[in-house]
């Protein structure tokens, strides 16, 4: 495997995007990044700008207003990058399936911009931080 992918696996910097979430998953993501779960041992670091990021943690069902913004954030992330769909809503719209404002789950929104996007799914409502760590580790080792 090329050195680019290897170094991406060892040092994934994450950026958090909220695409119309109820904030439950966002709270759990913030919990994940506290010293208690210590994701820094995997090299995970929270960065403030999508241009520094390797992994986008996207929460929320994709609302109509947020869809364009999520696509823009994806375009601003330098490739190669991974998109994590966190939570039941991001994986497949969850309970908001028939809402008037729902455009589609996150993978549909991202694949409009880049059909070859690498997307990993972490279901749960909200997923526990341990589940998120397990998801991140599994996704990175499958790269």
């Amino acid at each position, binding site marked *: 495997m090329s050195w680019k992918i290897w170094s991406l696996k*060892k040092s994934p910097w994450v950026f958090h995007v909220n695409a119309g979430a109820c904030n439950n998953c966002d709270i759990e993501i913030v919990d994940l990044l506290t010293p208690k779960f210590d994701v820094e041992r995997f090299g995970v670091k929270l960065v*403030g700008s999508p*241009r520094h990021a390797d992994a986008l943690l996207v929460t929320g069902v994709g609302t109509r207003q947020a869809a364009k913004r999520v696509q823009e954030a994806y375009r601003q992330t330098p490739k190669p990058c991974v998109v994590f769909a966190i939570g039941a809503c991001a994986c497949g719209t969850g309970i908001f399936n028939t809402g008037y404002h729902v455009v589609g789950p996150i993978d549909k929104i991202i694949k409009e911009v880049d059909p070859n996007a690498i997307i990993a799914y972490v279901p749960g409502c909200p997923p526990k931080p341990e589940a998120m760590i397990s998801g991140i580790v599994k996704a990175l080792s499958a790269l």
Partner: protein
Amino acid sequence: MAAVYERDKRGKKMSEVFESLFWILIFPGFLFTAVFGLAASWIVRKVSALVQWRVGPPLYQPYVDVMKLLGKEILIPENAQISIFVGAPIVGLAGVLLLSTMLWRITIEPTRPFVGDIIVAIYLMVLPSLALILGSSASASPHAAVGTSREMKLVMSYELPLVLAFVVVIIKTAALTGQGQQLSLAAISRHTPVLSISGMLAFLVTLLCVQAKLGFVPFDIAESETEVAGGVMMEYSGALLALWKIIQAMMLVALPLFLVMVFLGGFGTAGWPLVGGISKYVLVLVLLILIKNTNPRVRIDQAMKFFWVYCGITLVVAVILATAGNYYGIGWL
């Protein structure tokens, strides 16, 4: 005879050029300082982790970070000034490269210094901050503009106390160094001004100024991640961001080394002085880490007031004490 002499002079010049290139690029210049600096940044992260009762990143983490950044694509914003955007990290790298090479050369070979090199060092230390300001203002982004203005205010705040502190040191060591050697870093680094009241005050103020220059909490106002989405470095990605990280790592070597040389009595090259030098460097690094981990981030107006008012008054007192100590011959003032 004359022709042989000419060829000899030219030959010596070429080998001197190669020697200088070796010093600047390999040892103790770019490669050595970058590797050492990334290891120092690992020490910072590991000690911060231990202070927070957690396991930190593994040893190779900063190197993998830089490697990964070199492998990502570079995105340049549409409205950015490309020449300044790309040129700024290169200018910053040049500044910190020259600074660290100079400091290591003075440490390793004190017989080749030049008088006035402390002034060159102070001037070179400003160059990375200036490059940061230029690069972020060329980014054409409102977040970066906020970061730029904050960084400019911060640089204006701490440059004055920094220079005043070095004036204190020069006053303190003026009586002890030889004639005409007052401004020579090699001569200053043989004494320890920190063992006096004015020297200790100046050392504490310089420690905080170095904290601000390195962009550590409580003064990481310009790159405050959660406030301005990355601030000054927001639009940088890929290899340019890797350059900024390397510049930060090299500053992490150069600035505490400068502190050790000016205040704590220099860095030896062999035997016990070497061990002493390394432990002094580690002491300064640990002080920086502890201050970093026990303080929140301050606002820019709080930082300006702190540097101008509190540090300024402290240093004025220190200057008076140092001058009085020199005049009356009291060493510990």
